[in-house]
């Protein structure tokens, strides 16, 4: 029914006719895309790509074996060792702060959900993928100083359709989702500590080239910030050469220059990154900056300085794109390169036409018992679009699928459903929905909230629990608002050259915050103390009643209270002096009272007297 699934994967090469080249190659390229957005923001996307070919890699890729790296050149050894040890074939990691607002900003070059996301395709030789995955996330959390070690079986899934291999893969492998592990940590905060190890993987570090722009302060004050690493086996599009390994390190930032520029959209490298570009990485075979001028290639509304080296214009209609290209290698020979855009007037905030497909997701319902996740998918285009919706819900939200409801009738089927098991695994809900032309569909997943054990609550439990972003993967009929629709493209230039025809997009929705019923955490201790006190209070009288008997006694002559005490004390002292002999317990003088109810009272008097006499004794000792 849904044939397009195979479009997600491209199996466009013949493994058999690979002519093995004995040569080894290592190349590094660095590119930067700057795109002013209609909302008054500026989107920049850095891409650092390391490609590595040697006969060993070719063999590993085509025979689906583990990579064997011995001698590293440009490829980072720290990552290479992890890839090698943990049988990784393809690895995609993103660390993101903020949400990509695709409704206003269009579709990015590479989409990432807020927080951390990791998905890995393991090689089929892996013996125990679950264990390998656990070890891998620990190694990666060490490498990137991220809390990826919180990934366990409860937040790991293997979706069927949404995350197919991005690199070359034959159909039998690409369709076997048991080699895939996907996990997301929506609560992960991204900061300098993640950027520094990421920069260390670059061959020029941050000493030369485009990476010198990456100062943490301007990056982390931006509206959106996403670090990513994509490792995949790839093949050159143009030539039918051998497969090679491609490591793409990318960094996307969305700045808001209108905030600081008094309403102007003027931007420059120095303004955005607090530094111009002074050097080029000597190891980079190419180093380019592209400024998107698709909307205004005549520079009607703004001008850029210095003059671009070339203007790159491709496609027409929806696929039309125009870029001002700077060759950094030429540009920085004489002086620092500071690309600068000046606008004629203040930025006018207007209605931004929505992209073809956009999604919102939110929590509905009230109270602490149940709720519902509601998803609204809007198709603004003129053709129906079918989309794969992937939802990963933690086990403590118990979904009810029989009540999952839809507002309007539409074609949909659940392609994969994994039910949760408490404390072992989460929900995986993957469905294919068809969104008719220019309409919005709405559906909901009802859930009830589970009670957690008191140790399972995270610190600051009243903050709530995050539900990771849902992923919507769809093939749009045309490349409107799409940054890249060439999945096999390696360099940013190839990616930005958008072809006409269907375009694959992946959209990550908002993360959700659900509050679970939260107990008072001092309660267990209080309960222990209270229960013990109650038991102790009950035990004392019971013990007394059962072991002692009240007897009637004749009253002697009335003594004053003080005299009684004196008598008792002297009695006690006499006992002390003797050290042995009979027990010196002063008889309890009880008034005749046949009533049973008063017994306890009498006992209390007895105890009190005993207690007070002890006190008195101590006082005397002190004296």
């Amino acid at each position: 029914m849904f044939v397009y699934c195979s479009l997600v994967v491209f199996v466009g090469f013949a493994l058999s006719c690979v002519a093995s080249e004995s040569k080894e190659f290592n190349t590094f390229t660095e590119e930067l895309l700057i795109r002013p957005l209609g909302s008054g923001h500026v989107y920049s996307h850095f891409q650092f790509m390391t490609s590595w070919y040697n006969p060993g890699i070719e063999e590993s890729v085509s025979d689906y074996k583990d990579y064997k790296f011995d001698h590293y050149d440009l490829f980072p050894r720290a990552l290479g060792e992890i890839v090698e040890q943990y049988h990784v074939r393809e690895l995609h990691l993103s660390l993101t702060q903020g949400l990509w607002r695709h409704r206003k900003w269009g579709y990015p070059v590479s989409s990432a959900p807020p927080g951390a996301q990791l998905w890995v395709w393991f090689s089929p030789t892996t013996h125990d993928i679950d264990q390998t995955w656990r070890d891998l996330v620990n190694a990666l959390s060490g490498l990137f100083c991220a809390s990826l070690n919180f990934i366990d079986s409860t937040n790991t899934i293997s979706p069927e359709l949404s995350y197919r291999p991005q690199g070359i893969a034959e159909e039998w492998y690409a369709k076997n989702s048991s080699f895939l592990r996907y996990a997301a940590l929506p609560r992960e905060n991204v900061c300098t500590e993640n950027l520094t190890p990421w920069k260390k993987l670059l061959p020029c570090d941050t000493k030369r080239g485009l990476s010198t722009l990456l100062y943490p302060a301007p990056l982390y004050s931006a509206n959106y910030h996403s670090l990513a690493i994509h490792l995949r086996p790839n093949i050159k599009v143009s030539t039918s050469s051998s497969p090679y390994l491609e490591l793409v390190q990318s960094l996307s930032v969305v700045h808001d220059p209108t905030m600081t520029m008094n309403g102007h959209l003027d931007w420059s490298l120095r303004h955005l990154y607090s530094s111009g570009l002074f050097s080029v990485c000597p190891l980079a075979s190419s180093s380019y900056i592209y400024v998107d001028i698709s909307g205004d290639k005549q520079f009607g509304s703004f001008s850029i300085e210095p003059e671009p080296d070339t203007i790159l214009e491709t496609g027409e209609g929806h696929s039309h794109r125009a870029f001002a290209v700077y060759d950094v290698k030429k540009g920085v020979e004489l002086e620092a390169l500071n690309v600068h855009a000046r606008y004629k007037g203040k930025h006018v905030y207007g209605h931004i036409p929505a992209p073809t497909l956009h999604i919102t997701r939110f929590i509905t319902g009230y109270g602490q018992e149940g709720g519902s996740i509601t998803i609204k998918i809007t198709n603004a285009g003129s053709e129906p679009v079918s989309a794969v919706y992937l939802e990963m819900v933690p086990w403590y939200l118990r979904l009810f699928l029989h009540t999952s409801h839809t507002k309007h009738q539409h074609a949909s089927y659940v392609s994969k459903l994994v039910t949760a098991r408490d404390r072992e695994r989460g929900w995986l809900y993957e469905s294919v929905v068809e969104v008719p032309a220019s309409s919005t569909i709405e559906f909901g997943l009802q859930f009830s909230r589970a009670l957690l054990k008191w140790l399972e609550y995270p610190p600051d439990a009243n903050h709530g629990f995050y539900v990771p972003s849902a992923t919507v993967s769809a093939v749009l009929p045309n490349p409107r608002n799409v940054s890249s629709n060439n999945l096999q493209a390696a360099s940013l230039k190839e990616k930005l050259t958008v072809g006409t025809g269907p375009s694959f997009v992946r959209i990550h929705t908002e993360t959700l915050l659900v509050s679970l019923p939260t107990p008072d955490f001092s309660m267990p201790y209080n309960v222990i103390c209270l229960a013990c006190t109650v038991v102790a209070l009950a035990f004392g009288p019971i013990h007394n009643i059962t072991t002692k008997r009240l007897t009637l006694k004749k009253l002697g002559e009335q003594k004053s209270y003080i005299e009684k005490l004196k008598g008792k004390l002297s009695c006690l002292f006499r006992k002390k002096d003797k050290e042995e002999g009979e027990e010196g317990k002063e008889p309890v003088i009880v008034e005749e009272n046949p009533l049973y109810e008063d017994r306890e009272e009498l006992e209390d008097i007895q105890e009190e007297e005993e207690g007070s006499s002890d006190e008195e004794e101590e006082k005397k000792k002190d004296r």
Partner: protein
Amino acid sequence: MSSTENVKKPVGHEGVWAACGFALVLLVIGLPIWWQTTMVYRAVLPYAYIDELASHKARHRIHVKLITQDKNGINRLEKYLKDNEVIKYSVSSRLPTPEEINTSKISNYHELDSKLSRLLHIHDGALGVFVMPLTSDMPAVLLGNHRTVYVQPNISMEKVAKILESMAWDSSITDKVKSKLVSVDERKKQIGPGVRRQVPTEPGYDLTLTLMVPEPHFVKAKWEIRSAVEEYLNPMLDQIRNVADITVRSQVLYVTSLNIAPQWSDSHKHYKLPEEQLPLTINSIESKLGSFVSTRPSLHFVVYIPSSGQSPLHIHTQKGEVLQTNSFLVPRWGSVMIHNVDIPPYNESVPLPIEVSVNTYDVMNLVVSQLHKLLPIPLLESDKDLKILEPVDSRLAGWQLDALARARVSTYLTNTRITLQSLCELVGEISNMVISDEVGGWVWGAVEEWGACQTAATEGRLLEASQYCTEAFARVDKAFFHPSMLALLYFPDNQKYAIYVPLFLPVSIPVILSLRTIFAWVKAFLSRKEKKD
């Protein structure tokens, strides 16, 4: 005390029985349940066996096979071969066979060595002394590539014994074994530099060869590392694989320089790097050398191409001499080699970067020799009487392998003993420590292998001893560093009191006080019985 009697009387039989009941429930049921539920699980460890094994000192037995026509040879050799604290020799002697005599006439040393050692068949861990039947123009003592020493009949057995002793055991290792026993302050004085630079004894190592090119825009370095490793390093590493598993990787670090400040020396026409600066040089690259995967000790060999502003660069010793090897060894870490390349003065016509190739032969020779020092592999110096046969493509001789294995077995034995003893001590001192069955199993396994290793070593089965010891060490290491050992270590005592006091104090005080009544009653009962009697 008439009033006392007044009270005692009313406490009848029921009251006493009830008090007894409370006491019984508390002591017989309550106490054991409390004990059981709060007990820290501790698997049984073989303390006695560990003590026994630790007190027993294993010595390596080395079988020395003497092939000579002189019947008194054995007595003379035995007289000079002295047992020491780690080695015990046992000498056996036999006459050469006619075939061996024939073979010994070959004049090519390599051929002689390979053919004769095949005939003699000296097994692992043993040594052979072949006294040549006829005097020839051979050197007085010829040390073969296997495990045999060829000596002229007229040589004194004292010298032979000395050579055998240095073949069997590198004296610097004795210090190492000893050093584990002395306190820290004494250690610094006692250990020689040889011991301090050796890498810690572990089953495997990661060897990383790093080429540093600080200025890739001037210099484009080419190094044929793949073939160099295959040619120079792999033959040797394959040989010692049974003893120490070393994996080799290489990487190139660009735009990173060593943290040095060399001075121009007019007299030498080069930049000089004084020896005092060396300890700080590697700090700047440490962050790029670590591994996120392996926990094995790593060995780093860094080849540094100096930047154009510091080239040519040479290391000067403290006396001011130029260091010939231009490299330095960092103890327990690896070494740094400075590799100067010719960079012509800046010229418009010369296209940058300049391609230079790294001389892998020089680099690998240094790597191999420094690896020998780090592991350590014993080396003997040739002199006028002693000739050491040149090894074939950087391979190690049989006796060198044996000595390395022997040294490692000794260190493993010491390390295993120390780890086991400190584990026992720790467990004895800290009552909160959990000993899971897993940890217990490893300890039992380690002790078993340890015992087997000691037996094998004393019987001279070196290969088996090496395997047992590696296994013992690996297991005891796993047990010692198991995370479950620390699980309850930080459970504070005051929390225990906070939980127990509200329950136990009010409940146990009346019960304990009532014991007094019970005793009094029992006493009274007994005295009444006596009276009756």
